[in-house]
C-alpha cells in the first residue's frame, strides 16, 4: 500500500525535492542525464499533450451551438454559453440525459456499497477466521481475475434473463459487484491480514464479539483499504460500457456511457459536438475531482493491489 507515496530512495532523488543545495545534490545534479531546463521542457510538452484533449472538452462544451458547429473550430469560446448543458438537462431533445446521470449514480454507488460490504466481511473472514477450505475458496475467488467478464457475458445474459434481471439497474449493479468483488476481496483480505492478531485478541478479551471487534477495532485500522476498494469499484462502474449496452435496452435505464452513444448518434444525422462534449464533461469531471481529492488512496491501492 505504501509503495507510491514513499520518498524516493535512489541517489538521483537526493537533491531534487529537498530544496536548497546540499553537497550531495550538487554531485547528483551534475550526473543527471538531462539538464534542468531540458527536463522542464520535455515534461511541460508532455503535460500540454495530456491536458489538451481535456481543455478541448471543456471549451467545446461552453460554446454557443452556432460556434460549436463552426469549421475550423475556434480555440476558445468567443461567447461563453451554458446552452449545451441546459440542452442536456432538457429531456425534450429526446435523450433522457439527466435520467442517465441519476441511473449512473444509483448503479455505481449501489455496486460500490455492495462490493465494500461483501468484500469487507469476506476479507475479514478469509484473513482472520480461517475455516476448513477457506484458503481454497479464496484461491477460487482470485482465479476469477483471470477470466475477463467480457468472455462470460453471453451466458450471464441468460442467467439474468432467468432471474428477471435483464434490463434492470439491479441486474447491472449485481454484475458490476460480481466483477469488482475479487479485487475488493484481495485488497480487504490483505488489509486485515496486515493487522496483528494481538489487536483482535485484546478486543475479544475486553468482551467484544467477532462482529463487534470487526466494526470497532479492525475496520478503523483497515479504512485505507476500504476507501481504495470503494474508489476502484466506483470508477469501474461509472465508466463501464460493454455490459451496460448488452444488459440495458430501455432508454430510461441507460447509464452515462450508453447515453453518450445516443448523443453521438445525432439528431437527423448531424451530431451536435457541443452537446456531446458537454455530456462527456459531465461523465469525466466527477472522476477527475474524486481522483484529485483522494489521489493517495487511489494510487496507493492500485500499486498495493498490483504489486503484491
Amino acid at each position, binding site marked *: 500500500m505504501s*509503495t*507510491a507515496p514513499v520518498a*524516493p*530512495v*535512489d*541517489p538521483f532523488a537526493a537533491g531534487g*525535492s529537498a530544496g536548497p543545495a546540499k553537497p550531495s545534490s550538487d554531485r547528483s545534479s551534475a550526473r543527471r*542525464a538531462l539538464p534542468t531546463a531540458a*527536463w*522542464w521542457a520535455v*515534461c511541460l510538452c508532455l503535460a500540454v499533450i*495530456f491536458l489538451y*484533449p*481535456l481543455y*478541448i472538452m471543456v471549451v467545446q462544451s461552453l460554446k454557443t451551438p452556432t460556434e460549436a458547429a463552426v*469549421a*475550423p473550430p475556434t*480555440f476558445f469560446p468567443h461567447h461563453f454559453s451554458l446552452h449545451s448543458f441546459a440542452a442536456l438537462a432538457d429531456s425534450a431533445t429526446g435523450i433522457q440525459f439527466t435520467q442517465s446521470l441519476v441511473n449512473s449514480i444509483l448503479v455505481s454507488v449501489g455496486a460500490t456499497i455492495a462490493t465494500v460490504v*461483501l*468484500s469487507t*466481511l*469476506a476479507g475479514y*473472514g478469509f484473513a*482472520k*477466521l480461517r*475455516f476448513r477450505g477457506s484458503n481454497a*475458496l479464496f484461491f*477460487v475467488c482470485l482465479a*476469477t481475475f483471470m*477470466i*475477463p467478464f*467480457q*468472455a462470460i457475458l*453471453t*451466458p450471464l*445474459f*441468460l*442467467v439474468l434473463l432467468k432471474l428477471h434481471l435483464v434490463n434492470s439497474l439491479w441486474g447491472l449493479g*449485481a454484475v458490476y459487484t*460480481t466483477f469488482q468483488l475479487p479485487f475488493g476481496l484481495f485488497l480487504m483480505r490483505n488489509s486485515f491480514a496486515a493487522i496483528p*492478531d494481538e489487536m*483482535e*485478541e485484546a478486543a475479544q*478479551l475486553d468482551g467484544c464479539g467477532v*462482529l463487534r471487534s470487526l466494526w470497532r477495532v479492525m475496520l478503523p485500522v483497515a479504512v485505507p483499504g476500504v476507501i481504495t476498494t470503494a474508489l476502484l469499484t466506483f470508477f469501474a462502474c461509472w465508466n463501464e*460500457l*460493454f455490459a451496460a449496452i448488452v444488459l440495458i435496452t430501455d432508454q430510461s435505464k441507460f447509464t*452515462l456511457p450508453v447515453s*453518450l*452513444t445516443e448523443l*453521438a448518434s445525432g439528431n437527423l444525422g448531424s451530431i451536435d*459536438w457541443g452537446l*456531446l462534449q458537454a455530456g462527456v464533461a459531465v*461523465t*469525466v469531471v466527477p*472522476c*477527475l475531482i474524486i481522483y484529485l481529492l483522494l*489521489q493517495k488512496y487511489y494510487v496507493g491501492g*492500485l500499486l498495493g493491489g498490483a*504489486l503484491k
Partner: protein
Amino acid sequence: MTDPQIAAEGIPRARPRPGTARTGGQAPRLDASRPPLLTRSSRRRLTGAALTAPALLVIAVFFLVPLVLMLWMSFNDWPMMGGHHFIGFANYSKAFQDGEFGASVWFTVKYTLITTPVLFLLGLGMALLVRGGRRGARFFQTVWFLPVVIGLAASSFLWLYLFQSDFGPASTLLGHLGLGKASTNWFADSWSALLIVIAMVTWKVVGLQMLLLLAGLRAIPADVEEAARIDGAGRWQTMRYVIMPLLRPTLALVLVFSVAGSLLAFDQFYVMTSGGPSNQTITAVFDIYRASFVKFQLGYGSALSTLLMLVLIVVSAVQMWLLRSSEETR
C-alpha cells in the same frame, strides 16, 4: 500459514482465562455448569464461513454458473428464441473456418502488438523522467495520470471529436502542421483509424504504466546502481544489465496489463470506428458481441468466448511463470 492461527486460538484460552472468567460476571457460571455448545475456535470458524458466504454466493451465481453454462452452450446450437440442441464441436470447427472471426482475431493481435511496445516505452520514459524526484516531478506525475481515471467510452467520444474532419481541433492542428488536410476523414481508412485509436488509448493508459514502472524503479535499492557505477558501468549499461533484470516482476505485470487489456478491446472501437470502415476494425470481443447480441447465435458466441477465455488464461499463466522465475533468480 497455520502456525499463527493455532497460536491465535490457543493462547488466549490458555493464558488469561481464569482471570477474565472471575471478572467476567455471568458467563463463567454457565461455563462451569455445562460445557459450551461450541468451542471458541469452532465458533470462529463458523463465523468465518458465515462472513464469506454472501460474497461466495454472489460469485457463484453471477460468475461460476455462467462459466459452466458457457461451456455447455458452446456445444449447442442455441438461438435467442426457441429451443437449443447439442451439436458437439460444430461451433468450434465453425469458429476456425469463420473468416470474419479470423479477421477480428488478426486485427486484435495487430492492435495488441502495436499498443504494447508503445505503452511500455513511453511509460518507461515517463517513469525515468519523474523518478529523480526533482521539483515539479510530483505535479507532472499527477497531470500525466489524469486520463487514467477517465472512462474509455468518454475518452473515445472526446477523441472522436478531436479527429473529425473539418470540425475537429486535432484535424485542424494537423492541417496547420502540414501533416494532413483538415478535411481528411481519418476514420475512413482502417490504418489511420487504428492509429488514432492507439493514440487515444496511449493518452488514457500510459499514466498507469508509468506509475507501475515508477514503483518498480523505486523499489530497486540505490546502492545497487551506485555499485554498478563505481564498477565503471555507463548509464546505458546500468540500465540494461542492472536495472532491467531487477525490474522484471514489474515488467511482467506491465506487459500483461497491456496485453490483456488490448486483447479485450471493445469500447474504443465500438465508439470511434463502429468496426468500420467495412468491418476492418472489428476486435475479437466486438465479434463475440455481434455473434451473441446482434445475430443472436448464443451457442456460437459462447464458443468464441471460450476460445477468448483460454487465450487470456494462457496470458495470465505466462505472467505467473515470469513472476516465479524472476523470484528464483533473485
